[in-house]
């Protein structure tokens, strides 16, 4: 069988991607460039000239970046433990950590309300022990939004980092110590260079997820708008089709720019970025091959 005939096996996939991915995206791009006077960038300009849209765009970027940075850093702790330590109940703990993975944003938003709403479980509990309902209604403030976003990023960040940290051989650290390296020296010279790349790719993964998240904001964000919410407003109210398309394309571009620039700076292939193998650097084609021992022989 020659290569062309083999590739024909992927025809259903090609068809599916063309119809469901490329054609709608192209159409969206086309719509976003159309305006009353023909073609132009006026829809995109609206994103910057109209205060509500500009603010939503800005909020989206800042919130996603903040959440991505926080989750990448905080989740180093569980990722390190899962990768390098053994403790009783590890499997169960790890399983619980993966739970929010498939929670859609609305569920996370609901959980945030029942915990941190005006009469949420946390303020009620604090009321009982301190006599004051601290944190009441914090779900609707920026802090609450950040915590809710963190909630669904925890499993993503933890698992991405864990698989990278697993490649780190603790023996190295032991060896370094026996050679007289202090804790900070080991951290600076050994561990930081090793975790830098996974941290960056975790940032990219979590940033993308936060940027597109919609359900949390739908429930929680009262005055703080994000771009996906503005798109929703455009479609439920009488929206400007061109503007709606421009917002969508802006989201797509933002996500892709972050993903691909991270990839360019860290030399990872796309597949690797998503897998966050954290061991890129080898040329893309061969670098993304998985060693035989690493796969899962059935």
């Amino acid at each position, binding site marked *: 069988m020659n290569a062309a005939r083999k590739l024909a096996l992927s025809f259903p996939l090609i068809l599916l991607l063309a119809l469901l991915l490329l054609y709608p995206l192209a159409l969206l791009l086309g719509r976003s460039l159309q305006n009353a006077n023909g073609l132009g960038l006026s829809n995109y300009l609206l994103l910057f000239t109209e205060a509500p849209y500009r603010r939503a765009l800005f909020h989206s970027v800042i919130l996603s970046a903040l959440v991505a940075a926080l989750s990448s850093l905080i989740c180093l702790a569980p990722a390190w433990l899962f990768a390098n330590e053994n403790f009783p109940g590890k499997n169960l703990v790890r399983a619980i950590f993966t739970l929010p993975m498939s929670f859609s944003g609305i569920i996370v938003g609901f959980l945030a309300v029942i915990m941190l709403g*005006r*009469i949420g479980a946390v303020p009620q509990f604090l009321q009982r022990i301190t006599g004051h309902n601290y944190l009441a209604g914090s779900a609707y403030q920026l802090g609450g939004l950040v915590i809710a976003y963190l909630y669904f990023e925890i499993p993503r960040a933890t698992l991405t980092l864990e698989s990278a940290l697993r490649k780190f051989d603790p023996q190295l650290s032991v060896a370094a110590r026996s050679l007289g390296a202090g804790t900070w020296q080991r951290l600076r010279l050994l561990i930081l260079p090793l975790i830098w790349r996974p941290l960056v790719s975790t940032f990219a993964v979590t940033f993308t997820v936060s940027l597109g998240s919609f359900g949390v904001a739908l429930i929680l964000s009262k005055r703080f708008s994000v771009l996906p919410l503005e798109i929703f407003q455009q479609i*439920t109210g009488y929206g400007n089709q061109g503007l709606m398309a421009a917002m969508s394309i802006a989201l797509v571009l933002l996500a892709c720019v972050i993903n691909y620039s991270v990839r360019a700076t860290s030399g990872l292939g796309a597949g690797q970025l998503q897998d966050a193998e954290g061991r890129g650097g080898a040329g893309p084609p061969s670098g993304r091959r998985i060693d035989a021992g690493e796969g899962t022989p059935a």
Partner: protein
Amino acid sequence: MKKLLLTALGLLAALVAHAQEKVVIQYDCIPNYANWGGVTAAYMKETGVRVPPDMKGSSAAMAALDAEKANPQADCAYYSGAIGYQAATKGLHQPYQPKGWEKIPDSLKDPEGKWWTVHTGHIAILVNKSALGGKPVPRSFADLLKPEYKGMVVYDDPTIQGTGFTFVYGINSIMGGGADMKAGFDYLKKLDANVVNYAKENSYNDLLRGEIPIWINADGNGLKAQWVDKAPIETVIASEGTVVMPLVMGMVAGAPHPEETKKYLDWCLGDSAQKLMAQSFFRPVMKVDLDADLQKQFPPESNYAKAITLPLNEMAANADAVKARWSKEIKR
């Protein structure tokens, strides 16, 4: 593996079976609003026809109908009056005169039958007393501006929900404003300081739990929370007055299930449906005999002495401009 396949086949069969089942699609059919949950459940029991819940607000329903004009998905829709009127002028409805048509007052229906009122409500201040934190129950719209209610007030986003639109439009008349809407917008701007949220969706649940202490919405929802759900809710008709909100239905142009829809629309004006709506404290458009107990639970008529009836045609004609202005000046 086999079991999974069988499950999938079973579900597929169920889906096909559902496709055979008779349905009427009503946009804006929120179970806890005006007792639509009870109304549709009773209709299912009586006729076997299912009317599934739908969470779109009035304006969202109109936008969806417009987007689907080429290929309509819905059979009928329910709106607050002005939005229903607007949808009819946009050509989204087909004329139909349901049974009992002649009994509806002329001001509450379109002469051709493109929309008609099923019940009416009034804009009221719904207050969850246990969530006020000891503050007094506000008695007027002016009270709502007091700093002590900061972060407690919610009203619906008027670009999505019809009730929110009726309030945003009507407050101008309540405040004695003119055609420039200045009095209304001035008030809304001041109110903004106390508003925690312009809700995109129905907030009944949040009011019940006390998550929202003060919700400006239809009086029926507050009365239902108070009498049916026994929550510590008080429904305040503001001392400045209120506006009447007719809630209307219309049959969608190109409705996919026309025969079933007509039967359903007839039924909605019938005795049993109208009574069910009254149980949610929306005032039936038809004359029905209500239980004395229920009658007593409605606030006294004197509360509504200052209720203003706004011309729907004017409201509809200005709707887009008012919504745009609200987005620009209030929501920002």
